[in-house]
Each structure stands twice: as structure tokens, then as C-alpha cells.
């Protein structure tokens, strides 16, 4: 029973959500909107499980005095700090000038922007290591990346000119690659993904793929 009911729910709900695309009649026309609302609520409830899990594991680390347990204290304290401020400030917690907003601007934003900016370094180290003309496929990857990268900055065309090419040639080549070969490749991948998604979803609805339900 513990497995059959969930399987049944998945199958029925799945079929309903396929049908809603073709049936404009109420209530089918509202299913899509309902689901996104319901999912938002389910997600907002579930995050309590996640938060408790984070605190429990950090507390466990502190209790057992594992290595770096001090940083687990920091995790718990900073979590509590923003949560207490956020709840105390009420519905308008995000207004400019609130404590929550201050934490957002001076702690959260610089941290996530810098983490994001690390990509500049990683893009460089990844291209240094991976873009080697080992075989034909890797060479194609390399040449395409090379040309598009050059074509995106004014210096690229300047280099082209110094090699005797007419002006703006490299940027034109870059645009051509983006518009033709890139379009073709993206389309093939997109169609492939779509077929994979249809097949996977169908297996889930039919109950063939059921590992997400776990054990008895």
C-alpha cells in the first residue's frame, strides 16, 4: 500500500497535467496556475526540513568536536541572525533601510557576486587545460572558441587586420559561426533533450521508473 498509492497519485496527476494542455475548459485551464501555487507552498513548508537538517548536522559537528567545528557555530549563528531579523521585521522585511536589507546588501550580495566572479578565473584555467588540439573533435572545439572569443572584442579585429585580413573579418566569422553551426548544434541537442524528457516522464507516469519513491 505504501508504494501503490503514491504510484497511483503520480499516474493520475501526470495524465491530468498532460490533458490540461489540450482542454481549455475549466477546471483544466487552471491546473497549471494551481500547480505553481501549490508547489510554492509545498516548497516553503519543505524548507523547514532542510533548515532543521542543516542545523542538526552543524550542531552534531560541534557536539562531537569534529575538525573545524568552530565554523559550524558560525553557520548556525549567521542563520539565526538573519532569520530573527527577518521575522521581527515582518512582511516589509525587504524595504530599503531595514536590517534584513542591510544584511542583503553588505553580506549576501558581495559574497554571491564574488563567487560568481570567480568564473572569470575558472573560465581561463579551464580553457588553458582543456583546449588542446588532441584530436579532431577537441581541435574543432578549440578553433570555434578561439574565433568567437576574439570576435567579441575590438582587439580581435585589430589582430585580424595586422594579419592582413580586411577589417571586422574576425567578428564576422564569429557571428557566422554563432548563427549557423551553433544554431544547428543547439537545435539537435534541444530536440534530443525533448525526446529524452518525453520518454523519462512517460516512464515515470507509467510507473516503470519508480526509484524516487524509495523502499517499502
Amino acid at each position: 500500500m505504501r508504494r501503490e498509492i503514491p504510484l497511483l497519485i503520480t499516474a493520475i496527476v501526470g495524465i491530468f497535467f498532460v490533458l490540461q494542455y489540450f482542454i481549455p475548459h475549466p477546471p483544466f485551464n487552471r491546473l497549471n496556475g494551481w500547480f505553481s501555487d501549490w508547489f510554492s507552498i509545498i516548497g516553503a513548508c519543505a524548507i523547514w526540513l532542510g533548515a532543521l537538517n542543516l542545523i542538526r548536522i552543524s550542531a552534531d559537528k560541534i557536539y562531537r568536536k569534529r575538525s573545524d567545528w568552530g565554523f559550524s557555530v558560525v553557520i548556525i549563528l549567521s542563520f539565526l541572525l538573519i532569520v530573527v531579523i527577518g521575522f521581527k521585521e515582518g512582511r516589509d522585511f525587504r524595504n530599503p533601510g531595514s536590517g534584513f536589507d542591510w544584511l542583503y546588501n553588505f553580506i549576501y550580495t558581495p559574497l554571491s557576486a564574488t563567487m560568481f566572479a570567480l568564473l572569470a578565473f575558472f573560465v581561463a584555467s579551464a580553457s588553458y587545460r582543456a583546449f588542446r588540439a588532441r584530436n579532431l573533435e577537441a581541435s574543432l572545439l578549440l578553433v570555434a572558441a578561439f574565433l568567437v572569443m576574439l570576435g567579441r572584442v575590438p582587439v580581435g579585429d585589430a589582430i585580424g587586420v595586422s594579419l592582413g585580413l580586411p577589417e571586422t573579418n574576425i567578428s564576422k566569422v564569429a557571428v557566422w559561426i554563432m548563427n549557423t553551426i551553433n544554431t544547428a548544434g543547439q537545435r539537435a541537442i534541444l530536440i534530443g533533450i525533448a525526446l529524452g524528457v518525453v520518454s523519462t516522464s512517460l516512464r515515470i507516469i507509467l510507473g516503470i521508473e519508480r526509484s524516487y519513491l524509495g523502499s517499502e
Partner: protein
Amino acid sequence: MEIFGTWLAAFFTLGIISFLYRDNAWYKLCESIFVGISAGYWFVTLFWDNIHGLFWERITERHDYWLLIGASLGLMMLLRLIPPIGWISRWPLSFVVGATAGLYIINYFASNVMVQVENTLMPLFSAKFGDPLFSASPYSIVGNIVVAAGTFTGLVYFFFSKEHKGAFGGMAKIGIWTIMITFGASFGYTVMSRMSLLIGRMDFIFGDWLGLIR
């Protein structure tokens, strides 16, 4: 408070960057604060926006009682905290999985398969159906052929149930070449915006914080 904030922001910016050299206590501190603050940020935001804003306000003000279904599914999820009846949480989970599967079948089929095939079905030698044959420029004819052939062979590459041998294998080979060029191009294309992110951070450090840049 503003100046203190700027110094604090600089402290975190440099702390994260220090990771590039190697793991160290400064990064660990930044990381722990980041995990705690961001987990709490979403915790608070989801509470006020979804539970209070979406659920409570709409139930009490607009009497949208359909939301009660979502709330009961959410509560069933929380029953995991009570181990003996924790298995009930599989119901909302299977609800979510079913709905996702159903929605994705249709969305991907309609907007990826149908639309992409529609876009690929184009005359090779003219700008659009009905135009005289060979009315397009040689430049765009070449482009059209490349797009059509690339899409076709790319799709051949994804065939799973047929061995990639002979002519079929040759096509699959051209397909993977197309895909590799695609990857190279999108990699090169993205480098620019990644660099500008770093430029933005450095402008903050040397301009807004240290005031060294004019």
C-alpha cells in the same frame, strides 16, 4: 553604517578570492557565513512570500480556498518529522513528480520538438517558401545548408539503438563535430560576460572601497 558595510563587503570579496590561492581560514569563515546567511535568507523569504503572502493573505483576503490543497500537501511533507507516519510524505512527493512529468512531456514536446522542427524546415535556396528558386544570396544558401545538415547529423549522433558504423556512423561523426563547434562557440561567447563580472568586483575593490580609480 554605510562605510562599515563597504568595508565588510570588501572583507567578504577578498575572502572568497583568497580561495583561488588555496583553502584557508578566511575563506572558511566567508563560506560558513555565506551558507548560514543564504539559507536563512531563503528561509525568511519563502516564509513571507509563499506561506504568508501567497497562502495566508490570499486565503483570508481573496478566499482562494484551492490553496488549501497545496497547504495540506505541504503539511504532509512536514510529517516526516514524526517518523512513524513519515511515509505519508511520499504522497506530496509523488504528486509533485506526477505533475512535473505531465507538464514537461507537453512543454518539451511542443516547444522543443515541434517548434525546432518547424524552424529547421526551411527552403535551402530561397528566403521563404514560395520565393523563386535560388533567389537567396550564395552566402545565405551556404548558411541554410549548414544549419539543415548540422541539425540532421547532430540528431543522428543521439541514436542509441543503432551502431554508429558505415554511412550512418559517418553522419554521427559529422554530428558530433557540429556539437563540438557549438560548445566551443558558446564557451567563447560566454567568456566576455564572465570577465565583466570580475571587472565589476575589482571596480568595487579599487574604486568604491579604496578609491584608487578615478
